[in-house]
C-alpha cells in the first residue's frame, strides 16, 4: 500500500471516525458529552486491559530483545522534554514556566495514542513486539520530572515539593493500572488470561471507540482556544511530534524493534500526555498557563498523530528497515 492508500484506510478506521464524530458534535453545538464516570470507567478499563494483555504477552517475549528497546525508551524520555523546552523557550519565546509546562506534556506519553498506534500497526500487518506496553510505562514519568525540574530551577517551586511530585506521578491512575496490570498479567498465566480475556480483550476496540468519541468532544471544546495560543504553538503541535516521531523510529530500529514496534515507539515519543502531566504541572508551575499545554496536547498533537502521524511514522520505519 502507498502512503496515500494507508492514510485513506486510516481515515476510515473506527478510531479516527469516532474522533471526527466527537468534533462534529461540538461543531454543531450539541450539548452531548459522556457522563464523567463513564469516561473514567472507560479509561480505567482501557489502561488495565492494556496492562493485563501486555503482561500476558510479556511472558511470551524473548528477554534478549528487550534490553535495547528499554534503553532507547529511557533515552527518549530524557531527550524529548529537552528538545521541547529548547524550541519553546528560544524559538517560541515562551516564558520559562510556560515552556517547561508544555515540555512536561511532550516529554511524557499519551496512552491512547499508544493504543491507536498498536491498533494501526496490527491492522496493516506489522504486529508490534509483545513488550511494548512495558516500554509505555517507562516513558510516562521521566519527561514530566525533567521538564518540571527545569521549570523549578528557573522560576522557583510552586506548592509541591519534588518528592511529592515524584510520588504523585508514580502512583497516578495510569501507572497503577498499567504497571499493576502488567504484573497481574505476568503472574496470572495462561489460565488467568483465558478467564478474563473475554472482558478485557474482546471488548477493547469497541470501548476504545466510545472513549475516543469523548476525546473528540473534549478536543473540540478547546478548538476556540486555538486562536489564543497563537501560530507558533500550532506549528509546534505538529512539528515537534514529527521530529520526535522520526527520532523514535530511528532509535527503535537501531535497538532492533520490528517495523510495528518502531512505529509504536515513534508514536509514543511523538505523543503528548494529557492525563498525568496536567495536574502535576498545575501544582508545580502555577504561573504557567494551562490553556497552552492542554490545547496543544489535546486539540493539536493528539488528532495529528492519530490521523496523520502514525501512518507517517510507519512509512519512516518501513524505509529505515528497507521494507
Amino acid at each position, binding site marked *: 500500500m502507498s502512503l496515500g492508500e494507508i492514510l485513506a484506510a486510516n481515515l476510515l478506521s473506527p478510531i479516527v471516525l469516532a474522533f471526527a464524530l466527537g468534533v462534529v458534535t461540538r461543531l454543531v453545538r450539541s450539548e452531548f458529552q459522556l457522563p464523567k464516570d463513564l469516561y473514567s470507567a472507560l479509561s480505567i478499563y482501557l489502561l488495565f486491559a492494556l496492562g493485563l494483555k501486555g503482561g500476558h504477552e510479556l511472558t511470551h517475549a524473548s528477554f534478549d530483545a528487550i534490553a535495547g528497546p528499554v534503553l532507547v525508551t529511557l533515552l527518549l524520555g530524557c531527550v524529548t522534554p529537552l528538545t521541547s523546552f529548547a524550541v519553546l523557550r528560544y524559538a517560541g519565546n515562551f516564558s520559562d514556566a510556560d515552556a517547561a509546562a508544555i515540555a512536561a506534556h511532550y516529554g511524557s506519553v499519551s496512552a491512547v495514542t499508544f493504543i491507536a498506534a498498536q491498533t494501526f500497526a496490527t491492522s496493516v500487518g506489522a504486529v508490534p513486539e509483545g513488550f511494548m506496553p512495558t516500554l509505555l510505562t517507562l516513558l510516562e514519568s521521566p519527561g514530566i520530572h525533567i521538564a518540571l525540574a527545569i521549570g523549578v530551577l528557573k522560576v522557583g517551586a510552586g506548592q509541591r515539593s519534588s518528592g511529592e511530585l515524584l510520588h504523585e506521578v508514580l502512583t497516578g491512575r495510569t501507572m497503577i493500572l498499567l504497571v499493576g496490570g502488567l504484573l497481574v498479567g505476568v503472574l496470572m498465566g495462561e489460565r488467568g488470561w483465558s478467564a478474563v480475556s473475554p472482558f478485557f480483550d474482546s471488548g477493547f476496540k469497541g470501548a476504545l471507540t466510545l472513549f475516543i468519541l469523548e476525546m473528540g468532544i473534549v478536543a473540540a471544546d478547546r478548538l476556540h482556544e486555538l486562536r489564543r495560543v497563537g501560530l507558533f504553538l500550532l506549528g509546534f503541535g505538529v512539528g515537534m511530534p514529527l521530529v520526535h516521531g522520526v527520532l523514535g523510529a530511528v532509535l527503535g530500529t537501531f535497538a532492533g524493534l520490528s517495523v510495528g514496534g518502531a512505529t509504536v515507539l515513534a508514536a509514543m515519543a511523538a505523543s503528548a500526555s494529557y492525563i498525568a502531566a496536567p495536574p502535576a504541572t498545575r*501544582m508545580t508551575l502555577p504561573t504557567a498557563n494551562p490553556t497552552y499545554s492542554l490545547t496543544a496536547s489535546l486539540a493539536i498533537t493528539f488528532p495529528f498523530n492519530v490521523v496523520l502521524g502514525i501512518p507517517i511514522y510507519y512509512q519512516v520505519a518501513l524505509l529505515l528497515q528497507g521494507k
Partner: protein
Amino acid sequence: MHTVPLTLITIVGEAVLAEPLIRALHALGVSGHTLSEARGQGSRGRRTGEIPGDNVRIETIVDAALADRIFALLAETYFPNYAVVAWSTAIQVVRGEKYVPPPRG
C-alpha cells in the same frame, strides 16, 4: 435550642487544589470540612468537564480568628495563580463548642 455563632467559609476552586487545600486547612487547625463537586464559570473561563477536572466546593466551620488566617493563606498562596473564590457566612451551629479550638495559653 442553644447554638454558637461561628463562621462558615466556602471555597470554590479548581479540582486539582482539593488535596493540597484540605491539607493546608487542617494544618491551620480546622476541626473538619465538607467537600462537594461543582462546575462553574468565572473570570478564568468556563470550568466544566475538561480532563484535568471540575471544580470543588469546600466548606469549613471555624471561629473568626481562624477564618482570618484561612483567608490570609488563600490570598497569599492560591489567589494569584489559581481559579478560586472564597467567602464567609455568619452561621449558628448546634453543638458549636466542637468547632472552637480549646483556649490557648
